[in-house]
């Protein structure tokens, strides 16, 4: 039955795939096509004279497409399961929910990889217009590593999105997860280890960090040494973090997708992977980062709004009010401890 559903779902997704491929190719042709080569002009004797040319591989274009897809595809593939009306149809079909989850995950993966590959291929063909301008030795490695990273990020977002009971909450969960590591790293190690760990963002930042370093070599600015890339971009941190998170998310998705009660759909999203944990993390980290009483008040107001979104209304629970009181206390303790560690 899974094969039948896969065939049916792929047939339904074909149009989406064609749109995504067309969009990716068009964006690559427009941006890479016009920016891979630009003149270096110097002001000599009262006029601008072209003295040479700069070349850019524009690898950021396919990677940006990949990053946006990592964010959008979980929403596209799984928002169907966030409406009760749809579940009447989906869960009554003679296919297990787990199999259904796998089919949608795999379809999303295809929608992720194919447009990215097309964009990368077009970008590569555009690069060939300038013989000798680029070092191609690390291009395939970059393509594969970014794709691997993209798949991991996509997997995390799929898991996180499905922890929510509505599409809106799912989008919020993805946004919150996008910056949470960055925020924690800055709040905890912001003073002593800022340079090393502040890049631990998700999606755009991680992929961009990688791509920028690869571009340094591919564009011929530096000597092509793989070791340099790993050292320079903290590649090991990125890949290890995302590989672990990606695999855990895949397992989590496989185990939990079929077990979520249908009647919880469209209700308050009470998952530990969502607002319940994210609001406290964001509030405390925000206060640690902006150590100013006015900023703390703004953070508290934002946290109240966050709880209103969480509870889907203006009425907050008693536990929410207690936490709002506790946040500044924890932030104060953390600030003190971090400062003591730094000065010692």
């Amino acid at each position, binding site marked *: *039955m899974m094969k*039948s*559903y896969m*065939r*049916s779902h792929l047939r*339904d997704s074909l149009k989406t795939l064609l749109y995504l491929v067309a969009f990716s190719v068009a964006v690559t042709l427009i941006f890479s096509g016009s920016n891979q080569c630009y003149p270096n002009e110097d002001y000599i004797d009262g006029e601008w004279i072209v003295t040479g040319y700069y070349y850019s591989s524009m690898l950021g274009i396919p990677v940006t497409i990949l990053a946006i897809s990592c964010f959008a595809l979980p929403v596209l593939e799984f928002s169907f399961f966030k409406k009760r*009306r*749809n*579940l*009447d*149809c*989906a*869960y*009554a*079909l*003679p*296919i*297990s929910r787990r*199999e259904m989850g796998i089919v949608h995950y795999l379809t999303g993966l295809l929608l992720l990889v194919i447009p990215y590959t097309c964009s990368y291929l077009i970008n590569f063909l555009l690069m060939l217009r300038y013989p000798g301008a680029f070092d191609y030795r690390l291009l395939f490695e970059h393509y594969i590593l970014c794709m691997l990273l993209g798949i991991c990020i996509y997997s995390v977002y799929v898991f996180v999105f499905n922890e929510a009971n509505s599409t809106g909450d799912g989008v919020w969960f993805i946004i919150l997860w996008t910056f949470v590591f960055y925020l924690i790293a800055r709040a905890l190690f912001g003073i002593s280890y800022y340079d090393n760990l502040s890049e631990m963002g998700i999606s755009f930042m991680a992929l961009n960090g990688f791509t920028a370093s690869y571009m340094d070599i591919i564009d011929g600015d530096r000597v092509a040494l793989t070791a340099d890339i790993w050292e320079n971009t903290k590649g090991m941190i990125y890949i290890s973090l995302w590989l672990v998170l990606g695999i855990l998310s895949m397992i989590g998705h496989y185990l939990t997708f079929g077990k979520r*009660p*249908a*009647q919880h759909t469209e*209700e308050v999203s009470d998952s530990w992977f969502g607002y319940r944990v994210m609001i406290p993390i964001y509030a405390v980290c925000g206060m640690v980062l902006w150590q100013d009483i006015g900023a703390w008040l703004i953070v508290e107001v934002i946290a109240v709004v966050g709880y209103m979104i969480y509870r889907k209304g203006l009425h907050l629970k008693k536990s929410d009010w207690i936490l709002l009181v506790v946040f500044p206390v924890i932030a104060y303790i953390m600030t003190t401890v971090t400062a003591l560690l730094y000065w010692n």
Partner: protein
Amino acid sequence: MIEVKGLTHAFGEKVVLNGVDLSVPENTIMGLVGINGAGKSTLLRLLAGVYLPLYGSISYDGVGPEVAETRQKIFFLPDDPYYTTWMTPASLFQFYSAFYPQIDPKAYEELLRAYDVDMKGKMRNFSKGMRRQVFIALALAIKPRYLLLDEAFDGLDPLSRKLFKDAIISFVEQEHTTVIIASHSLRELEDFCDSFVLLDNNRIKHQGDIAQHVGSYCKFELAFREPVEEAAFEHLPVLAVNVRERFVQIVLEGDSEQMRQELEKLSPAVMDEMPLDFEEMFIHDVQKKKGAEK
């Protein structure tokens, strides 16, 4: 055979079904009735495997609907079925044929033709009744062993209702299907259901044969020489009574002959027994309950 034992379901703290026991024999049409919020749709969703029961069990020939293979034998048509904006009756058929290989394209086309629905029209442009007709045709073309229908008559015009009822009856005869229909159109249910279940207050209040159930009540219209009070009938098993000075309309629980004798003791000038239908009985039943609650 569908067996439901001790079925309990709740949404948060709100209990919707509480210890429901039910047995639906093969090859029958069962009507599921109850006021809004009685739990009819929830029961159907539980029977379809959309919701998983909090407590209790549901089995189809010994296997629960949570097993995908069991759902192969079931088709659930909810009150607001899913379709995408680009879907046509033809693409809807294609979608479902991936899951139900036994689906009969000829039967589907014939039914749609009978309903005068365009196979290639966009379903978003159809009226509610037309969409309902498409899904009914789909349900019958799939030929499931168990057919669960929620608000089956909703949006259907009188001719479509007749077509639908005829199709269901011949379908049950030919395919030996068991059908459960939840509806507020009790007159329609009375026409073709073998049995019924009345859900009330999270539980099954009555179940059994509709004709037998209606037959256990009787309705009289009486005229007295002098104005009478409602209290005059208090000693009788009254389901509903309407007193307008000398004229009385009364629904009683029990054998009509016995009740006639009881009423004659009150010396009415005129007494006529009136026909009582399922819907009227249901209304009186609900009104009595609401009156008691007040």
